[in-house]
């Protein structure tokens, strides 16, 4: 594997058109500034880059496979489908790419305590993992509703030595966990690094997360070239906050022939109130440190959101996605719970892969679009995580009674 190019992003201003910025309390501004400067420094530091590289290879199991899904391709009868297998990473999702990068930065900044928010628990587990690896203190903020429905992941984090705080404020889900993590950070910035899980929040997070996740498309571009000599015609990834999607897109943004598609969680339907389809249903706003697109009411109160997938259950989207949507460089499509669950079962039966329900939003879109494309065309679809964590909830969705 070649070293990760952290210089891909020439725009380091923290603004993506009108989106982005640092809309955050004054208490955190100096710390964000220190973080920005540290990142700008270390991303050019050969020692840092070597350490990052070694961790990605030896600890996270990179590069991840680019797998030709032959049975799916044949069955759908259109474009050739390649799956980028982030589900095979250590800890079972793309989240590890980002936590390794940020934790390494935290270490170099002299921080000894990591805090993070988590929805379903994947980012919390990844953060707890890297904290254990670096011998750092770790505290995870997780909405009370999520700690109740993801007890296994709570225990996993505790097993890894992290302290999990169930957040009882607000609607007790991911956005409230972010609020609580930010609030904890304002109390204790000197030794603490807030390890943000998605390409969201104030600058420099969207930039850093994109850079660390861009390993996905750096690899897939090279792997596909080796296999086919071509660029993909389309890249598809699921979008909650948008970290795996921005990483999947990053190395193709300047290749106009490559269509970029983000699959959002439509929940019970984009037209219903039970949705998390931010780009389709949302509007411009300012929240969680960024100007971006959000699901909100007319006054500007942030809406409760819904999706079967706890990982996509977020009322906003990263600022670069808002920009890609606005400029038309990427398209965002809503996938319902029903479609995602069907895709979960479909990819399990056709390819023998139990993929995360989040990732299955992308798979569902591939199922729709591939048959409409020519056989010489290529789709790269990111499987952002593995689906073991979802088996119980899919069974429940299907009305099957299993012992957990």
């Amino acid at each position, binding site marked *: 594997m070649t070293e990760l190019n952290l210089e891909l992003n020439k725009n380091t201003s923290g603004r993506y058109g009108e989106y982005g910025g640092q809309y955050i*309390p004054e208490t955190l*501004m*100096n710390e964000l500034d220190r973080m920005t400067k540290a990142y700008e420094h270390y991303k050019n530091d050969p020692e840092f880059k070597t350490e990052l590289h070694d961790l990605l290879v030896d600890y996270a199991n990179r590069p991840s496979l680019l797998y030709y899904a032959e049975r799916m391709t044949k069955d759908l009868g259109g474009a050739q489908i390649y799956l980028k297998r982030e589900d095979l990473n250590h800890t079972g999702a793309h989240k590890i790419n980002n936590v390794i990068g940020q934790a390494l930065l935290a270490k170099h900044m002299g921080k000894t305590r990591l805090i993070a928010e988590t929805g379903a628990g994947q980012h919390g587990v990844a953060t707890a993992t890297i904290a254990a690896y670096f011998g750092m203190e770790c505290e995870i903020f997780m909405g009370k509703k999520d700690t109740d429905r993801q007890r296994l992941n709570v225990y996993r984090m505790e097993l890894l030595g992290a302290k999990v705080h169930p957040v009882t404020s607000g609607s007790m889900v991911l956005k409230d966990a972010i*609020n609580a993590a930010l609030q904890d950070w304002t109390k204790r*910035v000197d030794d603490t690094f807030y390890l943000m899980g998605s390409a969201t929040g104030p600058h420099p997070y969207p930039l850093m997360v994109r850079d660390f996740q861009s390993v996905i498309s750096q690899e897939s571009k090279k792997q596909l070239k080796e296999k086919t000599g071509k660029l993909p015609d389309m890249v598809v990834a699921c979008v909650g906050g948008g970290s795996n999607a921005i990483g999947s897109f990053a190395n193709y943004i300047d290749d106009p022939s490559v269509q970029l598609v983000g699959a959002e969680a439509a929940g019970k339907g984009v037209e219903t109130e039970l949705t998390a389809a931010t780009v389709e249903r949302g509007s411009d706003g300012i*929240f969680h440190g960024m100007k971006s697109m959000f699901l*909100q009411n*007319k*006054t500007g109160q942030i809406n409760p959101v819904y999706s079967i997938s706890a990982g996509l259950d977020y009322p906003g989207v990263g600022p670069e996605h808002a920009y890609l949507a606005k400029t038309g460089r990427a398209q965002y499509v809503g996938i319902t719970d029903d479609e995602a669950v069907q895709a979960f079962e479909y990819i399990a039966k056709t390819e023998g892969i139990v993929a995360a329900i989040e990732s299955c939003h992308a798979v569902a879109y591939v199922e729709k679009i591939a048959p409409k494309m020519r056989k010489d065309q290529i789709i790269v679809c990111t499987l952002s995580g593995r689906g073991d964590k979802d088996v119980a909830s899919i069974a429940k969705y299907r009305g099957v009674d299993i012992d957990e």
Partner: protein
Amino acid sequence: MSKLTDAFKNQKAFIPFVAANDPDFEGTVNNVVALAKGGADIVELGIPFSDPIADGPVIQAADLRALKADPDLPMDTIFDMVKEIRKQTDVPLAFLTYLNIVFQYGYEAFTARCEELGIYGLVIPDMPLEERGELAPIAEKHNVDLIPLVTPISADRIEKIAAAATGFIYVVSSLGVTGERSEFANGLADLVNRIRKVTDVPTAIGFGIHTPEQATEMAQIADGAIVGSACVNIVAEYGRQAPAKLTDYTKQMKAAVNANPVR
């Protein structure tokens, strides 16, 4: 001169806070009028936000109560509350809210209504110095001060923030979120002195103050004291009976900020 700056003239200022629509329209009007009656120099009226990241549990709960009572709670309803308040008092008013609320209404329309109704300032915790540029010229045009926050760890940002300030400067007493405290950060006097070297704009300390003793102590350091959670607690506890309690509390705190400290 700014009406908010004026409120600090010749005396220390006491600045209480209540949340709009907590418990309801009429209650908000009565509460603000009661604070004015007790001698408040400025009243901060909070516009509830679903996710108030700078606020502690007490004000978060007030915001949630207010939004539970009216999930949409249109800005125009809050402006109507101010209209009612203005029939009864000319106490200087400032809004405390989060930027998204102002952004959704439109910066121009929002600050124009503020000017029309006598809202002289905005405290927006998620709008740091670097992001005020999109609102500042519009607010200035409508004579609305953007009240900046300065914290114990603002360090070399202190002078930059102070230099751009109008109205007054909100000095955050300690790290973390709003809510009652028994201790404050060290070095608040140094912080205020650094501000005073740069500007004549008055300072008021907030976050955590709830007792008269604390108010006296903080008013020795700065030009005024801001009290939020303690007032909100009174509203939460006494409901419709809150106005009389708020007036009493304000009288006590107003006396405290202008009292000589017990040494």
